[in-house]
């Protein structure tokens, strides 16, 4: 035997007739004291057997939530095919169609949604005309909704254009920045090359003007040559570094161009 089986004791109860007799006895006892009281035998409500559902607070909330959800879902579903002038048309346009807006973030998706709504309104307009319900009032409702959607569409398209403008400005700024940087580096390279030429020429003239010292100062010359070689090596390294920088900058420029192309492609696609 389990603890839960203790509930079986509930099977012990009075029969309906016994309960009725008991109630009559109670009623007559009470009526002796209170003459104006006339109690009537309570007939249990058919809903009483489900009353346990309302005894628990969690169950109450759950039942209420299911009830509200089913009512709203059914209403929303029923409103989908409604036309202007129908009872559920406002539910469709003001609630059901606005729910997806909560998930749209970009101006592009919002503009697309406005466009689709305009399309729907035009279909509704056509359908009203087909079934002969295109009254002045219904016409006004559809026109008002179309105007509203057009306004939303324009607003979002303006936002997209502003965004494009910003991208172009950014692109131009980056291009000018890149050009300035390249010019700077080209100047630097040119200077380095000029310095290298000057050094060579100076060395040459010194050697030509002082031949007598050539033999005596052989050791000095060797030293000088070594120094020049060192300088040359240094200049070459600098040149190499600058070339690398130019190469990197060129790569950046190419990448920038690719990004711009992608953005243009995306905008064209939208």
């Amino acid at each position, binding site marked *: 035997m389990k603890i839960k089986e203790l509930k079986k004791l509930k099977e*012990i109860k009075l029969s309906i007739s016994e309960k009725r007799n008991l109630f009559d006895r109670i009623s007559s006892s009470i009526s002796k004291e209170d003459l104006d009281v006339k109690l009537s035998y309570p007939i249990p409500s058919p809903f009483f057997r489900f009353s346990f559902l309302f005894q628990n607070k969690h169950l109450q909330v759950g039942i209420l939530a299911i009830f509200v959800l089913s009512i709203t879902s059914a209403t929303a579903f029923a409103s989908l095919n409604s036309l202007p002038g129908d009872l559920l048309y406002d539910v469709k346009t003001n609630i059901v169609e606005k729910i997806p807006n909560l998930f749209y973030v970009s101006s592009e998706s919002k503009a697309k949604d406005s466009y689709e709504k305009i399309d729907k309104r035009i279909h509704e307009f056509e359908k009203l005309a087909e079934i002969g319900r295109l009254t002045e009032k219904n016409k006004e409702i559809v026109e008002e909704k179309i105007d509203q959607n057009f306004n939303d569409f324009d607003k979002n398209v303006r936002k997209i254009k502003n965004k494009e403008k910003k991208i172009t400005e950014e692109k131009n700024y980056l291009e000018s920045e890149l050009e300035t940087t390249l010019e700077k580096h080209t100047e630097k390279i040119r200077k380095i090359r000029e310095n290298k030429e000057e050094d060579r020429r100076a060395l040459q003239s010194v050697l030509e003007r002082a031949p007598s010292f050539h033999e005596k100062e052989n050791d000095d010359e060797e030293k000088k040559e070594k120094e020049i070689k060192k300088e040359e090596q240094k200049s070459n390294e600098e040149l190499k570094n600058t070339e690398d920088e130019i190469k990197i900058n060129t790569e950046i420029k190419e990448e920038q161009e690719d990004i711009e192309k992608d953005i243009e492609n995306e905008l064209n696609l939208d």
Partner: protein
Amino acid sequence: MNLHLQKIFEKAYAENTDALFRFVLYRVSDKEQAVDIVEDTYVHFWQTLKKGEVKEPRALLYRIARNLVIDWYRKKKSVPMQMFPSENSEEGEIYMDMFAGDLVGVDQILEAKMAIEKIASLEPIYREAVYLRFVEELTPKEIAEILGISTNVISVRINRGINLLKTKLHIK
């Protein structure tokens, strides 16, 4: 005013009569006596209703019934204050025979008898708490109101009582 009270009364009668009858019957072991006590309970309940607002009709009904059972035992001094008939008592056998007609089958009679015996074997302080919690499915708060004890004490009694019952029934 009376009409409002009548509605409360009728609702209370529809919802609680069977449970009250069982509650009294397990204590007096006499069907006629149990019905009489239930009748008196409702008359007292009506008088209390007339005096003022009743917040918990069910708790009030149990409280009145419990007091009337105690009064009945006091008047019937020869009978020991025992809430349930014992396993081998003659009264218990009479009591079960009396219900044979109201229960659906022999199995149910045996199950009910076994359940009564197991609850009856508990210490008196645990019997009422376990009975009201697991048979009548009242909340500890309602039981506390009926017995006039704090909810914490009732929870402890239910817990200890059910552990004792599990041991007796060999349930882990």
